Each structure stands twice: as structure tokens, then as C-alpha cells.
């Protein structure tokens, strides 16, 4: 192999790994015996190959895809899930949401029932027999009255909180709690 042919091959097929095995052996044999071609090979590797070995691909910013999708008028996030919300969330989130509502509704209903039972109890001593028989005092109210009788401070506090200075409330509340109102009539 002549030096000119060797140097041409070094700059092309040899550096790029395109040389056949036979030609490669032939070229290396020549380089082994030719100082000038050996230096040419070393210089070529250092100048033309090594600078590219540490090169990294430039970073692509995500905004580029958004711009492309915008120009094409397509969804920039096709196939990805929609932003998580309560209604489109995972099954666990949905169960927690429903459970919260059920608990809230139960609390509200229980509160309404308790209040209605306390406020709708007819004063047995004031109402006529048939009405008393239809809505007899519950054991809860009886217990409350008994407690008030035992605890004078509680009785006083209860009267103050329920008595607005009229006779009207005595119609709906147990007579035991309003002896004053009853006596004044």
C-alpha cells in the first residue's frame, strides 16, 4: 500500500469503521512500517475523532412541543390523564369523597331528629288527653326533668335559656319546668 492511499483511507473508511477486514490488516501493516503515516493516523484521531467523543446532545426544552402542538391545533398532552380532580380522581379518592358526604348527611339528619324530638314534646300537664296520649313524654325528657329536680342550678339555667318572658313557650314545654308560668296563669 502506498502512503497516499493509506492517508486517504485513514481519513475516511478507517476512521469510520467502514474498511473491510483485509484492507484494514493491509493498512495497519503499512502503518507499522511507515512513521509518517503512523503520525498522520495519530494526528487524525486526536483532531477529527476525539473532540466528538465527549459531545452531548443539546437539551430540548418542553416549550418546543407546546409550540408545535399549538401551531397544529392538537392537544399538547394526548394520552396523558386529565388533571386530577375530585370527580376524575382515583377510586380511593372517590370513595373518601362519598364517605365524607354520607357522614355529613348522617350528622345533619341526626341533629334535626334530636332537635325536633326535644322541641315537639307536648307539655303533658297542659294538653288535652288525646294529644298527650298521641305524644307521650319520652324517657329522655323524663330523665331530664328528674335531673333538673335533683340539680337546682341546672333547673335554673334551663328555665332561663328556654323562657323568653312570654307564656308561649310553656305551651310546648313540660309543665314541670315552668311552675312559675303555670302559677301565674
Amino acid at each position, binding site marked *: 500500500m502506498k502512503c497516499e492511499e493509506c492517508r486517504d483511507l485513514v*481519513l*475516511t473508511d478507517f476512521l469510520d469503521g467502514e474498511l473491510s477486514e483485509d484492507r484494514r490488516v493491509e493498512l495497519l501493516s503499512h502503518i507499522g512500517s511507515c512513521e509518517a503515516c503512523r503520525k498522520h493516523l495519530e*494526528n487524525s484521531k486526536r*483532531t477529527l475523532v476525539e473532540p466528538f467523543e465527549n459531545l*452531548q446532545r*443539546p437539551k430540548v426544552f418542553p416549550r*418546543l*412541543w407546546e409550540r408545535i402542538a399549538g401551531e397544529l391545533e*392538537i392537544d399538547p398532552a394526548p*394520552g396523558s390523564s386529565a388533571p386530577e380532580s375530585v370527580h376524575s380522581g382515583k377510586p380511593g379518592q372517590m370513595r373518601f369523597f362519598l364517605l365524607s358526604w354520607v357522614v355529613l348527611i348522617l350528622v345533619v339528619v341526626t341533629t334535626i331528629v334530636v332537635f325536633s324530638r326535644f322541641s315537639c314534646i307536648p307539655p303533658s300537664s297542659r294538653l288535652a288527653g288525646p294529644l298527650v296520649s298521641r305524644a307521650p313524654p319520652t324517657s329522655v325528657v323524663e330523665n331530664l326533668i328528674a335531673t333538673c329536680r335533683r340539680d337546682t342550678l341546672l333547673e335554673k339555667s334551663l328555665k332561663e335559656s328556654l323562657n323568653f318572658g312570654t307564656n308561649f313557650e310553656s305551651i310546648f314545654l313540660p309543665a314541670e319546668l315552668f311552675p312559675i308560668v303555670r302559677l301565674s296563669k
Partner: protein
Amino acid sequence: MTEINEPTIQRACHGDPRAFAEVYNAFVALVFSVAFRISNVREDAEEITQEVFVNLFRKFSQFSFLSSLKTWIYRIAVNTALNARRTNVREAAKRVLAQQSLLLAQAPPQPDEIIQSEVEVQELLSRLPVEQRVCIVLRNIEGLSYQEIAETLQINLNTVRSRLKRAREALLAWKQGGEE
């Protein structure tokens, strides 16, 4: 690079945005790299990449499956970058120095040898006529074989070889001249 299977390509050909997004994810680094190495300006490379994918989406139905999708995208990227370079070459010459310093300033902390390589490669590429530069980019940076370069540029193998040889001779001469 993620491999794209034929059903995905078929769906992209029919305008499926999800399939097209997969094609984008698989090839954007390649397209941007080629665009950046040919234009040498980041903003230009972004515009070129955008133009490549917009055209790709609109002309995907023209993909004939006779060559590989990768070769076809390389061809579109190189042609788009060359066209942009012709129109932007004067502006690019003004911006290139500022761009180089900006690129290095914005880059995350990197070993010195990587920064040195980046500077050296930009210097080498800037010395070459554009047709030789494209061959060096496709061979040295993208790692394409002579056959793939020939198919991408639609030139014969000997022309690829000839352009690479002349480019490397010029770079060696420039480097030796600088050292002397």
C-alpha cells in the same frame, strides 16, 4: 432513541395526535441536534425543529415506508436546516458569538472536557462549507453509516466519502496551521 413500531407510524400517518406525540418524543433529540449543528444557533434550531415536525404532521401520509422513518426524518431535518441557513446566514453570523457564550452560560455544570469539546466542535464545524459540514454532523455526531448518509442526502456513496475526506483534510490543515 425510542423505537417506533409500524402500527404507531400508521396511526401517525392518519393524523392521530397521540401517535404523532410518540414520534415526536422518539425523534426530537435527533432533529434538534442536526438543526443545531447545522445552524449553530439555538433559536434557529428551535424554529427549524418546529418547522420539521409541523411539516411532518401535515405530510405524514406521504411517508412511503420505502426508507426507514429515521432516514426520512433525517432528510427532512437536513433540508429544512439548509433552507433556513440560506435565509438566516447573515443574521446567524451576527448572533453566533453571543449564542456560544449564552449556550455555555445556560448549561448545567459540566466537566471541563465536555465544555472544551463543545467549543472545539463548534469551531471545527464553522470552518466547513455546508455540504461537508452536514456529512461530518451525520457521521461524527449522529453516527450514521456511509450508506445511511447517502440515503439521507440522496447522493451516492463515493460522494459521501469524498465530502468527508475533503472536510477532514481541511480541518487537519487548519489545525496544523494554527499550531505552527
